[in-house]
Every structure is written in structure tokens, then in C-alpha cells.
């Protein structure tokens, strides 16, 4: 168990970095103003959070400080950094002199640990190069020092890692290596640009923890750039909110979060899904409850009490029974056995008409494969998937095709899920051509335009092409395509994770509204537990292809029973500094094992703080436990 960060440093600490009237623009056919008249400062040892959505100019600001902007950028203003007792102006500094500060007094880590390390050099070579340059260490001394730093960021077997290449490691491990490399010269200021955005949430918690620890130890200042209000609340002393290159609000974190002065800050905070907020799906409106309040009420209380298999007046819409999906990933070398990847390993559940089932899990847990198997998009699977009582695996291709009308999908990447060469109208109308071939072109267009209006777009958008729309709009188009044939089930595979928070909130709002209006059942797949809780009636937690816990969404978050669920919940930062600073957390160790070679017994045992011998020997089954179904030998008592 770890406690959150210590209270902020004293306001009397000297200013380390000050940015005055920074403006960045790009000349092109139209001049783009990326940042305008931005001023802020960072004191020694403190953490300043720079938050904003995409296009807010936060990364541009960081790159300007580091002198890393492309040559086409025009920069004005001042960036002053204290080197010892002396203030130096960074923007006008010649490259050569700047190189004595970059990587030494100021370091930076980047968002994507997959691309930020050189794939062609060993880790050791990349780290040693920095030490050789800035601290004039011999190669041997540099390697020793690098190994020590890897130890400090808790990379296991540091010495051996130095000889490895980045692609041989997981994302979390690489980000640790990035941090270690950045800290090699013990900088006074670390700029971290979305350091955990590309990582799974339990790994994010580890990384943020290590960063906070090292920051305390080294007494360095941190400029943390993020879009995640929760991360700010948990990690920053002060915060600056940006939008469209302009500062909207800044101040102490506690103050900004408790009494935001700016409208945009308020909207942003309101849009962030909170893990500690009750499920709207359950609280607001339950299954099929139209205007009939009484019936809705009674059904809801019914649901919250008996949630695992909701009492079903009718047969379930979808039944999945012992679903298994195995991929053959070929041989590692000649004559070695074929390697099988069990992407989904025995998953069963039922879904009632109009119900929302949330599926959460981190990368490699099989949630997307599950979706594709249910949608009959995979070449093969074992187990049974029945829609409306018909087992799809046994049907002819034509019959499966007929069933597709009732079962549609919304994908994660809004742009990639739309054919760039077709107009929006044709994209949305395509399923109609299959399922209602009798319609004329005009009739199809009419239906499409009505639906576009319903998902918040304009009818004339039907004639445009996908690349002319923003991410949120593209996702609306995807939703329209899914709904055009009036399906009974829509599977949403991470539908909002590529979107900014405010857009995310709108899309979720839209989905919930449509569900209510059309009586849709949803399977909502996401890695973000807060979003899932908000929208789902029940939630299924997956880990390495298996279901570890299944219960209604409020019970899951309020009294999780599986240690993994518990850790997952603890890892999600809550956008409220008061709560964050006093939170006790269960932090997991290590990374998610490769699904190619999952641990014996309980798949979670390598990271489980409660693991015992029995967990190695015996695979726990998903069994009823209190209000939930849990797959654990020693569930956390609720």
C-alpha cells in the first residue's frame, strides 16, 4: 500500500523556470497560432500541471522550452531558466550552449515510449551516450551508472536490460527506461509530456508513483503535461489550464478544482467521468423504462439487488457460453511447437434486451477479440454464441448474414473505421443495401439524413467525406452506420478512447440517449473504468482472456472482490485533489504477462498481492460470491 504525494513545497522556493509572453505560430497558407501570450513559472521542486485537450498548445509549449520546435515555427517571448544563480534566456540561446542545459539541467520525457527510444540501439548505448556527453564518464562508468538508475526506476535485472533493444520490452518498461534516461544527470527540471497516456492504467499508477518518489528524492521540479484531470489532481501542486493556445486559468490545484473560476475549466471538470460517481445507466433510467416512472423504479431496484443474471421476463438477447478464441502465432523457430495465443479463454455471459454490459480490462485481456467473436468476424472460435435464441456458429453463412442486422458495431478509431473514399451518406447507407435492398436511392438517402440529424450531424453532411470531419463527428457517423438497420444490440469497442474528454462526454451522452430511445442493448468495451461505470448496468472485468469479476457497476466499484478489480479501481485517479491526496492504494507490481505464455493456475497470480500456493496450482472458477461473480480463491471481503 502506498500513500499519495506529500503536500506541496513552500511558496518561497525560488523560481526555476519562467515563461513570459510565449507565442508560437506557423506560417502556411493560413497562419496557425499554436500558443499565444502564455506566461507561467515553475518553482524549484514543485509540480506544475499543464492541462488541455488536443490542440491546446501544451506540447508546443514544452517543445519551445526545450528548443525542439521545427524550423518552420515562429517563436516570440522569453523563457528564462536559472542555471545556478544566473538566469539564462533559452529561446535565443545558440544550439551549442543549449546542449549544455538540455538533458542535463532540463530533461524531457515523451508520450509514446514505443517510438521515443531508438529501436536500433541497445538501451545501454542510448543511456551511456548521455552520460558520456554531459558527465564525461568513461563507457564503463556510464554503463554502471545507467544500471543504477534503472534500479531506481525499478526495472528488474537492470544489468541485463542494458544489452537489450527497446522492442524486447513492454510499454511500461520502456517508459521506465525513458524516465531513467531523463534523470541520468539529475536535472533540476523534468518536463513530462503525457508520460502515461499510452500505458495501461495499473502501469500508469506505477509510473506516476515512481516519478513522484524520484522527484522527492532528487528535489527536482516537474512540468507535467496531461489531458487527464485525475492525474493533475493526484500529482500536481499548481495547475494551468490551456485551450486553443491560451491560458484559461491557473492556480493551486486544490483551489482550481474546488472553485474553478473559468467556464472552460468548469466544463472540463464536469465532462470528466468520475469513478466515484454513481452509474447513470442504473441511477437515471433502467431497462426499457420509458416515461412510466413506477415501473422503471421497481425494475431498477430489482436490478441493483439481483444483478448477475437480471430477472428476465423474456429470453436473453445474447447468450455467450464458454467462448474460447485461440490464435496460432506460428513457430518461434523451426521444429519448435506452434505457439498458441489464447486470446479469450472460456467466457460466458448473458445480455438482456436493452441492457448495457461494460467490459473492462487492460491491453491483451481479450476484450476486443471477444467483441469480434460475438460479431462473427473471426474465422473460428470454440463455444456458443446465440443471438435471439439461434446459435450463430451452427447457421449457414446466409443465416448469419441475416442475423447481422440485429447486431452492429462501433469501433475505436473514428477515422479508420470509415472508408476514406466513400461519402458519409454511402457509408451510413451501406448496411441498408444489404438488409433493405428494396429501398430506392432516394429513400435510402432520406433514412440516412434522418439518422444523421438524430446523431447530431446535419443532413447535408451526407455528401461529404470522412476526412472533412473531426474525431467526435466521425464517431457519430460510425454510430449512425451502426443504427441504420435498427439493430437490437450494438457492440462498442472502445468508442470514446480516441476522443478528447469533452467530446467523449458528448458521445457517451448520445449513446445513452439513443439506447433509451431505441431500447438498444449495448456491450461497451473500454479500458477506462470510470466511463464504463457511468454507462453500464453490469460490468465484466477481464484479465488475460478470462473473466475475473462480473457484477453490477456500482457494486463493482464500491465493493470490489477480486484483487485485480481492486487494483484497477485504485489505479484510476479521481479528479479531486482532496480525495486523491488521502487515498490508500493497492499498487500492482510488474507488467501484464504475455498472453502467449500465461501463468499457471490463476492468471493474475504474478501480480497479485494476495497470491498463495493454491493460486499457482489451481485455476479459480467464476463463482457467485455475494452480489457478484468472482474468479478468485481468496476474494477481498466486502
Amino acid at each position, binding site marked *: 500500500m502506498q500513500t499519495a504525494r506529500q503536500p506541496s513545497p513552500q511558496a518561497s522556493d525560488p523560481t526555476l523556470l519562467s515563461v513570459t509572453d510565449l507565442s508560437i505560430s506557423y506560417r502556411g497558407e493560413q497562419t496557425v497560432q499554436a500558443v499565444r501570450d502564455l506566461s507561467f513559472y515553475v518553482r524549484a521542486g514543485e509540480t506544475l500541471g499543464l492541462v488541455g485537450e488536443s490542440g491546446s498548445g501544451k506540447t508546443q509549449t514544452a517543445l519551445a522550452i*526545450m528548443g*525542439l520546435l521545427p524550423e518552420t515555427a515562429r517563436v516570440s517571448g522569453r523563457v528564462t531558466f536559472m542555471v545556478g544563480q544566473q538566469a539564462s534566456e533559452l529561446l535565443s540561446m545558440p*544550439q*551549442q550552449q*543549449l*546542449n*549544455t*542545459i*538540455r*538533458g*542535463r539541467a532540463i*530533461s*524531457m520525457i*515523451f508520450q*509514446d515510449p514505443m*517510438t*521515443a*527510444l*531508438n*529501436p*536500433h*540501439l541497445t538501451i545501454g548505448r542510448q543511456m551511456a*551516450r*548521455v552520460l558520456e*556527453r*554531459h558527465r564525461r564518464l568513461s563507457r564503463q562508468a556510464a554503463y554502471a551508472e545507467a544500471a543504477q538508475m534503472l534500479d531506481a526506476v525499478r526495472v528488474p535485472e537492470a544489468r541485463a536490460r542494458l544489452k537489450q*533493444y527497446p*522492442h524486447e520490452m513492454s510499454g511500461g518498461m520502456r517508459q521506465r527506461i*525513458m524516465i531513467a*534516461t531523463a534523470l541520468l544527470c539529475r536535472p533540476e527540471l523534468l518536463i513530462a509530456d503525457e508520460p502515461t497516456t499510452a500505458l495501461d492504467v495499473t502501469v500508469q499508477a506505477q509510473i506516476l508513483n515512481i516519478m513522484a518518489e524520484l522527484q522527492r528524492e532528487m528535489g527536482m521540479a516537474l512540468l507535467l503535461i496531461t489531458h487527464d484531470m485525475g492525474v493533475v489532481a493526484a500529482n500536481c501542486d499548481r495547475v494551468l489550464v490551456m485551450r486553443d493556445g491560451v491560458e484559461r486559468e491557473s492556480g493551486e490545484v486544490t483551489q482550481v478544482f474546488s472553485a474553478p473560476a473559468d467556464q472552460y475549466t468548469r466544463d472540463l471538470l464536469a465532462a470528466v467521468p468520475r469513478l466515484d460517481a454513481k452509474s447513470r445507466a442504473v441511477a437515471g433510467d433502467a431497462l426499457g423504462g420509458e416515461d412510466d416512472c413506477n415501473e422503471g423504479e421497481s425494475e431498477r431496484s430489482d436490478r441493483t439487488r439481483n444483478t448477475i443474471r437480471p430477472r428476465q421476463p423474456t429470453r436473453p438477447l445474447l447468450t455467450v457460453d464458454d467462448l474460447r478464441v485461440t490464435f496460432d502465432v506460428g513457430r518461434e*523457430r*523451426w521444429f519448435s511447437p506452434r505457439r498458441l495465443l489464447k486470446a479469450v479463454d472460456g467466457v460466458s455471459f448473458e445480455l438482456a434486451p436493452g441492457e448495457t454490459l461494460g467490459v473492462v480490462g487492460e491491453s491483451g485481456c481479450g476484450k476486443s477479440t471477444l467483441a469480434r467473436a460475438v460479431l462473427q468476424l473471426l474465422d473460428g472460435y470454440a463455444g456458443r454464441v446465440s443471438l435471439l435464441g439461434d446459435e450463430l456458429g451452427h447457421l449457414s453463412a446466409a443465416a448469419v448474414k441475416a442475423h447481422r442486422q440485429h447486431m452492429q458495431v462501433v469501433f475505436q478509431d473514428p477515422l479508420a473505421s470509415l472508408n476514406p473514399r466513400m461519402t458519409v451518406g454511402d457509408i451510413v447507407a451501406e448496411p441498408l443495401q444489404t438488409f433493405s435492398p428494396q429501398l430506392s436511392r432516394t429513400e435510402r438517402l432520406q433514412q440516412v439524413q434522418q439518422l444523421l440529424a438524430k446523431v447530431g450531424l446535419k443532413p447535408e453532411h451526407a455528401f461529404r467525406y470522412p476526412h472533412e470531419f473531426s474525431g467526435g463527428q466521425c464517431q457519430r457517423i460510425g454510430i449512425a452506420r451502426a443504427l441504420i438497420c435498427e439493430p437490437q444490440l450494438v457492440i462498442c469497442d472502445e468508442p470514446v478512447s480516441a476522443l478528447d474528454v469533452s467530446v467523449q462526454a458528448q458521445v457517451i451522452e448520445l449513446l445513452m440517449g439513443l439506447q433509451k430511445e431505441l431500447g438498444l442493448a449495448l456491450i461497451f468495451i473500454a479500458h477506462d473504468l470510470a466511463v464504463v461505470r457511468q454507462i453500464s448496468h453490469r460490468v465484466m472485468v477481464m484479465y488475460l482472456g478470462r473473466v475475473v469479476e462480473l457484477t453490477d457497476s456500482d457494486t463493482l466499484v464500491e465493493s470490489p472482490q477480486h484483487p485485480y478489480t481492486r487494483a484497477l479501481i485504485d489505479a484510476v485517479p479521481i479528479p479531486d485533489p482532496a480525495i486523491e491526496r488521502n487515498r490508500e492504494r493497492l499498487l500492482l507490481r510488474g507488467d501484464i504477462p504475455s498472453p502467449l505464455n500465461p501463468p499457471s493456475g490463476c492468471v493474475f497470480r504474478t501480480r497479485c498481492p494476495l497470491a498463495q500456493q493454491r493460486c499457482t496450482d489451481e485455476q479459480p472458477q467464476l463463482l457467485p460470491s455475494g452480489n457478484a461473480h468472482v474468479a478468485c480463491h481468496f476474494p477481498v471481503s466486502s
Partner: protein
Amino acid sequence: MLSFAFRRFLSGIPTLLVLLALSFALIRVAPGGPFDTEKQVPPEIQERLNAAYHLDEPLWMQFGRYLGNLMRGDFGPSFQYKDYTVTELIGAGFPVSLQLGGLAMLLALLAGISIGTTAALKQNSRTDHVVMGMAMTGISIPNFVLAPLLVLLFAVTLRWLPAGGLGEWRSLVLPVISLALPQIAYVARLTRGSMIEVLRSDFIRTARAQGLPTLEIIVGHALKPALVPIVSYLGPATAGIITGSVVIEQIFGVPGLGRFFVQGALNRDYTLVMGVVVFYGVLIIVFNFLVDLAYRWLDPRVQL
């Protein structure tokens, strides 16, 4: 690494077999034997000749015999140069061609990579545009057009360099340049493209953020990844230089393997032609194998 090398090596064998079978089949199926072209030969002499060259055996036996001989490095006698075996002819011609081709390749790589890198570093500057325009010209002028033009200019008009022959180093200058120029242009374009892409990548930004000086970034971080496409171009480049050497040797009168090949082709000297094709085939296959190894070294992510 060893098993990678071994598997790579084995995978060259089918290519070689297909090549052998194809060219062998071609030769046998083709109309007109080596002794048809001359005036009528009495049938009994024809028969004896056929027997002497085993032309009377069934095809598969001839192929088997041929393969067997190849294993021993024996390409058979030349039909045209009656006193020489093909092996001897290859032995005489290849060193000359190797010298020419090797120099051209070296020049192509050195000049191409440095020109390409310079252009990439000054992307969109005037230097970049001029250099790349020249590269495009280099690609568009085939070397058999370039060579006579160079001769016209430097040997005939200016009389700076000899127009051909072999001997002093000066006689090599024009052939090597005409052979190398298109390849220089290709390599320069490839290098520029890949260097620009590498310089834009995130890990170069990381290196700059670490305060490494530009030269160290280029040499230490960018060069290795930027060379990957160049290495994969080495195979086609070798093939290009070998093919080019055929005409260049012809134009400059260099007594290399390429000339034997063309003469052999025009005179229907089957064994010679086939010998050269097989020889170059093996050369290219071996070379590709080495390239694969280099590739693997440059990019540790590569798997077979």
C-alpha cells in the same frame, strides 16, 4: 543469428534451382543448335558433334550431367571459343568485371549516401532542390546513353581521358563513372528520403532533448536506421551494376564477363551464356544472403 543465417542460406537454393532449370530448358527448347548457323554439315559429323557434347542424351540426363559438372565448377567447353572451357573464360573475364563493378558500387554508395544526407539535412533549400534535380536526371539517363555522351565529351572533344581499353587507371574513369552514375542517383534519393524520415522520428527528438550535438545525433542515432533502405537496395543495385556492365564493357571495349555474355548471346554460344547466367545468379544469391545478414544487424527487430 546462426540459425537465421542458415535458414536464409537455404532459402536461396530454390531460386538457384529455378534459375538453372529455366535457363537450361530455354537452351534446349530453343530453335537452332550451335552448329546450324554455319553451312550444311554432313549428318555423320553432326551426329559425332552431338555425341561429343552429349546432345543426343535425353534432356533430364543432360541436365543431371550439367548439374554434376557445375558442382565441380565445370561449366563445360565453350561452343564458340573452341579452345577454352567456359570456366576459363569466366576466370579470365570476371576479375576485370569485378574491378569495374566493385569500383562503381563503391563510388555509388559513398557518393550517393553523402549527397543524400547533405540534401536531407538541408531539406527544401536550394542545394537540396538542385542536387535532387540532378539525381532525377541521373536516374533518367540510362547508362548506355550516358556512356557514349561522356565519351563524346571527354574523350572525343576534350581528349582528357581515353575512350576505352584497359591498362592505366585513367581508362577506368569513364566506364566506372558511367556505370555508377545512375546508381549514385538512386542511392542519393533513397538516402535523402529515409534520412528525412528518420530525422523526423520521435527518437531523434529524444536525442535532441538529451542535449546531444547534431553530428553525434546523425552519426550515432540516425545513420544506422537511415541505412536500412540502402541495404535493402544493395541487391537490386548489384543486379543493376552487373546488367549495366554488360553494355558498358561493350561500349568501352573492356574485356570483361559482360562482353563474353553479349558475344555469346549473339553467337548462340549456349554453354557460355548459361555459364555466365548461372555464375551471376549464384553471385546475386550469395550477395542477397550477405545483405540479409547486414539487414538483420542494422535493424534488430527484423525476424525471418
